[in-house]
């Protein structure tokens, strides 16, 4: 996946090897940079073999519908479900830690995370490299951010093929990181005219949008533990 993954626990012993073996398997299966990976073969038209690949393809379709097409694994012309795979892999890693009885942990993959217990999380400022723009006291929560600052404009509006305007970063909180990550990508792609309306209606997920006119909009449930 080409991104740093940090697993941090408090107190408890944790099955770190099992967690990182899982991430290595995910990378081997879903890396679009490896021509021999299962996802590369599926992108070339072969049917998916593993149940995990089938699950990912199914969820891509569901999320595409839930986001009115703004989360689109085919937005770049070929299949690339990386935006969903990362969050999903972290959710599964969190399941492994839960099953091992770890009570306080963070699994942080490239700035998107699942936390168990309470952790003070800073959200990277979109314009100031050395600053955070918001602080979230997160308990048992998934937090995903999509922004322009990490890789330049890598999110496109699938309806226009152009980069969206007006949203510098979108952070989504909720129970499940795969969904939160897809919603964050969608909100960024919607741009400032649509995203605030759309995030205000999300159920079970909160949102924090940073707009390019330096307004910060958040839903009342942003950062709250899922019910």
């Amino acid at each position, binding site marked *: 996946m080409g991104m740093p993954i940090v697993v941090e626990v408090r107190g408890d012993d944790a099955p770190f090897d099992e967690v990182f073996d899982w991430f290595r398997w995910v990378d081997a299966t879903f890396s679009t940079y490896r021509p021999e990976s299962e996802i590369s073969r599926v992108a070339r038209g072969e049917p998916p073999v593993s149940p995990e690949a089938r699950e990912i393809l199914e969820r891509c379709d569901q999320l595409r519908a839930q986001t009115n097409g703004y989360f689109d694994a085919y937005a770049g012309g070929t299949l690339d479900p990386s935006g969903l795979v990362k969050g999903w892999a972290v959710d599964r890693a969190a399941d492994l830690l839960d099953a091992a009885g770890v009570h306080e942990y963070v699994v942080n993959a490239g*700035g*998107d995370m699942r936390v168990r217990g309470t*952790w003070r999380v800073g959200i990277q*400022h979109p314009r100031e490299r050395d600053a*955070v723009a918001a602080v979230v006291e997160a308990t048992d929560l998934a937090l995903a951010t999509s922004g322009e600052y990490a890789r330049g404009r890598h999110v496109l509006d699938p309806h226009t093929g152009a980069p969206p305007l007006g949203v510098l970063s979108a952070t989504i909180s909720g129970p499940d990181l795969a969904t939160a990550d897809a919603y964050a990508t969608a909100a960024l792609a919607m741009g400032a005219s649509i995203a605030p309306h759309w995030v205000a209606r999300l159920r079970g997920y909160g949102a924090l949008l940073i707009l390019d006119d330096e307004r910060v909009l958040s839903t*009342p449930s942003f950062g709250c533990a899922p019910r």
Partner: protein
Amino acid sequence: MHATVAVTPKKHVVTTTKTVQGSQGQADRWGTVQVTLTVKKTTTTVGRKKTVKRTITKVAVPVYPNHTDRSVFINQQAIPLLVQEELQAQFNISQLQVIGGATDTSYAFGQSLQAALLAAKKL
């Protein structure tokens, strides 16, 4: 000799207010919705020139879907539900335990706040 007499055309203004009701429509799978508009019509007649201006003064939704939590929720105006603040930059990260939204790539990670935080914790 001609005398010029300025004749001011008489101005006549009539205002009426009318309420119109749309038909009941199906709002996707959430139920039935109906909209009522109150329209103010101002007719101004100056000489032979007649100007009609219509303004919507009220929008009411007498029938709206509220049979599920979801449809009650979407009935609420979306934007007033959002809290608006000005963007702040907080440079002191020593009280934080994790940084989110920071780094997508290994390249950027070395210079990221999350890396700085881990270095401070000596992990």
